[in-house]
């Protein structure tokens, strides 16, 4: 994970959508929110989950790797930028490559947009908008030490397994202490391929 990064704690999310509104206020993409807020079992549970870009470290940025126009740049500090509007061709390759479902493509503008951790704010030492306003700390911005000082005993994960592929990310997730399972399973489990059970 990055030194200063976002920690996502789904257990603290109350689904209030403050992050979604705050993201819309960001000056680099004003009016468009790039946060996904999912209700995992709407109508039956109040559980909710915010998704920001995970800023994949290893393999580095699948979205950037598949970009045919070299539009997605990664900064030296590990932040995967949103597509450079002078290069992006709106092909959606990045949307297909992202294991977390993060980038969105404005098909009319033929432009990809995604969370860049509010680079205009973090470059000046401020926290990203979403983690600044989050009323509950479900989105926390800082170092792991700062998180641990506030939440003694907190466990975090920055590795996610998609089948055989393990992905290490710049953004980390808080995992329940009693359920930690390293790496965190990502995506749906593969149970069968062409009618044959996969063990």
């Amino acid at each position: 994970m990055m030194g200063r990064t976002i920690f996502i704690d789904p257990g603290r999310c109350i689904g209030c959508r403050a992050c979604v509104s705050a993201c819309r206020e960001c000056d680099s993409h004003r009016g468009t929110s790039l946060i996904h807020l999912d209700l995992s079992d709407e109508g039956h549970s109040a559980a909710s989950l915010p998704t920001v870009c995970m800023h994949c470290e290893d393999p580095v940025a699948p979205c950037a790797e598949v970009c045919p126009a070299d539009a997605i740049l990664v900064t030296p500090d590990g932040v995967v930028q949103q597509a450079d509007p002078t290069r992006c061709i709106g092909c959606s390759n990045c949307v297909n490559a992202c294991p977390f479902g993060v980038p969105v493509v404005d098909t009319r503008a033929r432009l990809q947009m995604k969370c860049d951790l509010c680079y205009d704010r973090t470059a000046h030492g401020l926290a990203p908008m979403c983690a600044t306003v989050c009323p509950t700390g479900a989105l926390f911005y800082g170092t792991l030490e700062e998180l641990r000082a506030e939440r003694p005993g907190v466990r975090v994960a920055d590795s996610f397994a998609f089948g055989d592929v393990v992905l290490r990310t710049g953004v980390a997730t808080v995992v329940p202490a009693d359920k930690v399972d390293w790496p965190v399973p990502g995506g749906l489990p593969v149970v069968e391929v062409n009618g044959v059970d996969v063990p």
Partner: protein
Amino acid sequence: MSPPGSGETLVPTHCCFCGVQCGMYLRVDRRGKVFGVEPRDHDINRMRLCAKGIEAYQQINHPDRLTSPLLRRTRDEPFRPASWEEALDLTAAEMRRIQDAHGRDAFAVLGGSGLTTEKAYLVGKFARVALGTRHVDHNGSLCTAAAATANHLAFGIDRAANPFSDILLSDCLLIAGANIGDTFPVLTRYLWGARDRGAHLVVVDPRETAVARTADVHVALRPGTDTAFFNAVLHVVDRDGLTDRAFLDAHTTGWEELRKTVAAYPPERAVAVCGIPAEQVERVAALFGAARNAMAWHTRGIEQHPRGADTCLSVINLCAATGNLGRPGAGYGTIAGQGNGQGGREHGQQYDTLPGGRSITDPAHRRATAALWGIEEAELPEAGTPMAEMTGQMRRGEIRGLLGLGNNALVTLPDHSSAQAAYDALDFHVQCDSFLSETAAHAHVVLPVATWAEDEGVMTNAEARVVKHNKAQDPPPGVRTDTWVLCQLALRLGHGDRFAFAGSREVFDELRTATAGAPVDYSGITYERLAETGGIAWPCPSTDHPGTPRLFEDGRTRHPDGAVHLHPVEWREPADPYDDAYPMTFTTGRAAAHYLSDTHQPPNLPRTKGS
């Protein structure tokens, strides 16, 4: 982030929505127009905001804003734009006509707790002095009235006993009838800050809210059975010797009677009445009773019931019996829902109160207020009736004219068809609003007034902390402040000398004088001090007084005997019990992105109404 040299400025202020009153900056462009929001490191919220706060600025320059007075003679005519001169002259003439023909009390005023405290004060003074009517109330009586009654009965003072920051110091938090996650999202961080220290969290709520989902104990009782539950918890606390005998002996009255009452509420009774397992009663009693510092917070979920004050008292009884009052992390509070839910009910826009939390039925209080206003005590009207009763008087023709401001009563009053009939029966209805709300759309005259960011003033949050709202932009052309409207109407009614206010600051100065020595004492609070401190909790009797964030630290309540008055309360079957014909339960909820009747103007929020 504003680029340097952009000419943008940041105006420090507070969110207008909800009783938490989070600090925020409004972003103002070089033309002087508000166009955005920036988080502010105020100690209430430490830069946090919910979706309501982030989107609030979008109301200010919204295309649906009203910018001209609207008039019509009858409700079947369309509105026509009119000049302020014509609209105010007509309104004042109608006030005179109705009062001359049907008596002074035939014209009523309904205010609201979305108004700043200065405006709320002016609503009460306008009704009692300029109109001389007894009929004035505000939408707070639909809201926090039950808790206010309970506070007065138990403590002799109506406010939360502890600041929000005490939540972080508590070992057991009891949250009753409060959907913190949706209604006061920013308070969630306080709850979880306490839990990070090891505090236990108990949530009493029929629904599994986002916070209830994570609680140590979620008591999902049947709606309307809270009193039976809290009595049963106190039963177990007493049975297991978890009461604080020293506190009960030294600081309370009525314990023996209360003890007899709760003796009839063993856990089995809660099982039968509330539909919850007996273990939950035992567990809550053990957690709350054994905690070194325990604290209870509740809101409308247990208050907005027939006998809602009784339910609040059953929570207060539990706090007092376990000695949880007046210490860091130990205490009690009700969280006001409206932005100025606390301040709006303190200074005389309520049917039975005068400024400073004084009572309109107390001769000494009447004399003090009459002297300040320069009228004879006999001229000061008697107590009126609560808003919900006023609708009956409107239907019966006892109230024939109405000035409404800071509310959307046609939507928020219970029993909509009766409320509609009441407004239909009015001879003359004038409503002040920034938008054409449902209530404004039903009026004869609509006066376009400023939003919260277009005037300065104070609001008092749910901790009883007075905070300062600052003006971020001028109102659009054609729009005036409520203060200006009330002063202009008073002038036309022949009381201009008592309403010669240039703006909020002059009103606040008079309010400070009016509350000196009163139960709700603001006299030591100034705009300058609020800017320096970020907010001061009343009572604050002098300009060198630091304010009173926590009550009862000396063990004394505001009753003359200094004791907490314990009131035995019995659970009663709800007014509409379940039976075969009506077997279903409906309960109201909240949505985090919305507030009161009408926050659908910001285009980005999902359109749901009636929260």
